[in-house]
């Protein structure tokens, strides 16, 4: 539980005839992750590999076509219930079926698209014609005029005067038909021999001439009527085609979903096989398996294929384990917090998995900051509803819902300790203390809590380093043994100084501080001495001393800031009560007689506190977890365990 799942590296040599059953056996349980070894094997077998590549491409192509069909039929891509995966799909059999469905669906969809495009075209023409709808002139007649050349169109209103100026050397007639939104509909006419001049002038004045197809004849009003009736016809045609799509959906949707499932399974299987090594009559499968499941898997494979050779070895967790994939397998209660760890980084195979620690500390710190029975209950109910997946609007919480639930429960517990329910601090008797009236006490307690948590962080860091035999880090690092001695000694000195009534062994702390300071300042020298490197000091003593001093200074400052950071836990506990009090004051201002206005304000406060304050407290808790706690011991950088699956549902 405290380390990632123990892994063994396996090498399986499978006869070609048993390839698919063995592939199915190693997948699907989430215990095997594949290593790409397609470089293993004979050059001669490359041709066979190419055949798998071709197959994989064909399956992928078919999958895309089926997805397009589903999208055309407006059917949601879903996995059929209870369908199992048998053999690889025979492409020769299934392709004609897909072709037939595709042709039928595609034809109808194309007809809809054509009609939609027609409507778009008609609407464009309508947009051009509508500014001219008041004019009783047949556009087609103007176009065919013998002596006069005219242009009708839209242009920027700002340019009309300039256009007139530009035409001043030829006789012309310019009529502004209408003006709206800086756009003017204009008609300009010149003698036929001046048509070039007019073309140049109108083009440079950004006039957009109206362009109607030859078949659109009559006045703008008549053309507009024709276009509108064409639009109605196209819409009718689209409705008919959509009806046909409905029929096709009923006829084919389940068949297409079934085929899609089979194609996906086949595609995933061929993709897996592509990563195998290939010998003349056998395939080589290499990967990592949960150590606990290795014997079961071996037996299973042997029962399917007695000729298969199955070999494995378990890597020492603390030596050369950088390539080992990391699978976190915590108990069900703790598992939701894995997400928070992974958001920071994937732990290394050799280091302690911080998930159990997060599972305890995160709700604890949240609860301490947001201690209220009522508000905690609301959070817990929201978390529980989100976990049940029955309330749609809470779906956004996703994997966070168990964490919200845990935080809610812990807030309730602290609510009882603080004697607070929905912000009322007079109803419940506090089992411990009320933060608002014991501000200094709560702040000091949270700092002490912080010191305990940080000490735990130091200890884990030292333990991790010891386990991998990184002695330099375990002893001389600022999060190592000397760091811990210095930190605790400084804490001891601070307590002796601030609380002189408490009798503490100040001399011990002073010696501890001196050891810590010297140890950390000269850590580099000690490490070089242990490792036998010369010279012990590089770049001169003065430079070394200045650098070491500032590094030590930074370390001490970081100890101080890390510890004081936990003050926020107490501060938020105090702020929670005060924020509730603000809403009570507002509620009494709205309705002093505690009428409906009071309770509306109470509700607004409840939403604000649970939503907004809850979010801020969550962010602060996450900050403490990531920066103050993880920063002490968690390195990360592990390789994610990605189980092989041939099953689309499992892949999700």
């Amino acid at each position, binding site marked *: 539980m405290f380390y990632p799942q123990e892994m063994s590296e396996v090498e399986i040599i499978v006869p070609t005839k048993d390839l698919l059953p063995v592939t199915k056996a190693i997948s699907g349980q989430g215990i095997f992750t594949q290593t790409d070894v397609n470089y293993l094997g004979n050059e001669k077998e490359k041709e066979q590999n190419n055949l798998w590549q071709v197959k994989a491409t064909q399956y992928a192509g078919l999958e895309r076509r089926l997805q397009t069909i589903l999208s055309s039929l407006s059917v949601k891509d879903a996995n059929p219930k209870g369908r199992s995966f048998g053999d690889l799909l025979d492409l020769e059999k299934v392709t004609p079926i897909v072709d037939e469905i595709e042709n039928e669906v595609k034809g109808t969809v194309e007809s809809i698209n054509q009609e939609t495009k027609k409507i778009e075209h008609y609407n464009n023409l309508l947009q051009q014609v509508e500014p001219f709808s008041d004019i009783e002139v047949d556009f087609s007649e103007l176009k065919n005029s013998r002596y006069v050349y005219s242009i009708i169109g839209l242009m*920027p209103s700002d340019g009309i005067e300039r256009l007139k100026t*530009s035409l001043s050397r030829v006789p012309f007639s310019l009529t502004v038909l209408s003006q709206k939104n800086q756009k003017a509909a204009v008609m300009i006419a010149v003698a036929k021999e001046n048509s070039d001049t007019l073309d140049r002038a109108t083009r*440079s004045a950004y006039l957009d001439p109206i362009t109607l197809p030859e078949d659109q004849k009559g006045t703008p009003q008549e053309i507009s009527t024709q276009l509108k009736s064409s639009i109605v016809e196209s819409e009718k045609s689209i409705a008919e085609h959509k009806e046909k799509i409905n029929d096709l959906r009923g006829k084919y949707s389940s068949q297409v979903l079934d085929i899609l499932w089979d194609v996906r399974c086949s595609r995933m299987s061929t993709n897996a096989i592509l990563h195998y090594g290939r010998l003349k009559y056998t395939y080589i499968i290499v990967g990592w398996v949960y150590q606990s499941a290795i014997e079961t898997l071996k037996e299973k494979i042997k029962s399917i294929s007695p000729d298969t050779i199955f070999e494995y070895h378990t890597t020492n967790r603390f030596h050369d384990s950088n390539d080992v994939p990391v699978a976190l397998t915590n108990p069900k209660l703790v598992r939701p917090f894995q997400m928070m760890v992974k958001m920071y980084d994937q732990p290394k195979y050799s280091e302690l998995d911080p998930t159990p620690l997060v599972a305890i500390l995160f709700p604890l710190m949240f609860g301490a900051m947001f201690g209220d029975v009522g508000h905690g209950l609301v959070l817990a109910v929201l978390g529980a509803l989100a976990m049940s997946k029955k309330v749609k609007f809470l779906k956004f919480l996703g994997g966070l819902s168990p964490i919200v639930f845990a935080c809610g429960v812990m807030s309730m517990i602290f609510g009882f300790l603080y004697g607070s329910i929905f912000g009322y601090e007079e109803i419940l008797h506090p089992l411990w203390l009320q933060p608002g009236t014991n501000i200094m006490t709560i702040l000091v307690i949270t700092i002490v809590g912080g010191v305990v948590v940080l000490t735990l962080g130091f200890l884990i860091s030292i333990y991790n380093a010891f386990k991998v035999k990184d002695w330099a880090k375990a002893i001389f690092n600022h999060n190592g043994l000397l760091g811990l001695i210095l930190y605790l000694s400084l804490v001891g000195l601070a307590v002796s100084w601030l609380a002189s009534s408490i009798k503490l062994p100040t001399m011990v702390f002073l010696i501890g501080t001196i050891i810590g300071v010297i140890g950390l300042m000269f850590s580099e020298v000690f490490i070089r001495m242990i490792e036998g490197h010369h010279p012990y000091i590089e770049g001169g003593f003065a430079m070394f001393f200045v650098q070491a001093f500032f590094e030590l200074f930074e370390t001490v400052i970081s100890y101080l800031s890390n510890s004081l950071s936990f003050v926020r836990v107490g501060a938020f506990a105090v702020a929670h009560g005060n924020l509730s009090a603000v809403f009570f004051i507002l509620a009494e201002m709205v309705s002093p007689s505690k009428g409906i206005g009071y309770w509306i304000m109470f509700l607004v406060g409840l939403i604000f506190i649970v939503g907004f304050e809850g979010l801020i407290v969550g962010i602060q808790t996450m900050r403490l977890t990531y920066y103050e706690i993880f920063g002490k011991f968690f390195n990360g950088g592990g390789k994610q365990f990605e189980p092989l699956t041939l099953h689309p549902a499992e892949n999700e």
Partner: protein
Amino acid sequence: MAPEATSAYASINARVRVMYSTLLSKQDFSNLLEASDLDNLISQLKHTAYSPYLDRAKDKQLTARRAAFHMRERWTETYHSIASGIPEYARSVFSQLIRYYEVNNLKAILRGISANSDWSHVRYVLFPLGSDSSIPAEAMLESHNVTQAIEMISNSPYYETLSFAMKRYSVEQTLFPIEVALDLDYWRELWKEVKALPKPDQDYATKILGPMIDMNNLMWAIRYRTYHQLSEEEIINYTLSFGYHVQDADIRSIAAGGDIAQIIKRLYPDIAGVDELLQDLHSGLPKLEVLLKRRLLRQCNAAFVGNPFQIGIPLGYLLLFDQEIQDLVVLLEAKSNKLPVEKYRSLLQLD
């Protein structure tokens, strides 16, 4: 003038005069011209008011383009410092003034898309406007499509103008109509804002911005005729109908094929040697532009003499400052390309 405007201008006047004193002197420019190479030029600039801006990038990263980008950041910050103290009624002129750089950025982005450039190439070409810009520059460039990029700014003030220009772009597949439409719209809006100012400020702003509009309009008309060989009606539609010294009749005369040298001599009798200058228009036009810019800068400097409570002082300073940066960019590019001084000295305005 309202008392609050007087007090606002009094404070602006004091601040701008301090800033005015930080403009580089002729001696500074002479020293910068002497810089042996780009690194030397940048190290000299690090002893000027540009130092904190150049320090925003590591020395290794300071190419000519990157250095120019950071120096322009100083302009943007100065603009904010000035614009925040301008009386309410005159703010729209300053808002429109900074849009000039946004229009140029927009044009640069569209050119970047046409040239299939990536963001790392275009980023430092853009004027650093920060939150003043509503253009999603990177997203536009990465759309790799002019039409899609324009759709991304459908809520900007440029969209309406661009909607007509885009129709031409879709047919002609050249950015020319888009750029012309953006320019015309910009200067028309600026002129409108100037004309909306109350009387004394309107006159002061016209004295600064009018010559700028004249210069642009005149150069457009001449270039459209000589470089692009556009027809009379096209030149008229692609130019502005208003100006300060340059009137519509002058532009129309150029469009109709009038003698350019004669028109320039009539408009600017103080410019000597116009005939020789414009004998070869291709080489003469950049020189003419330099002379017109120098006249404009004299006008900006003149704003600092006389009435201290007026808009001309901050406007004049911002233009002078912008010109200083333009000159420094010329220097940076020249040093970066190891050009001899005589090749670019004549292009500097503050020389």
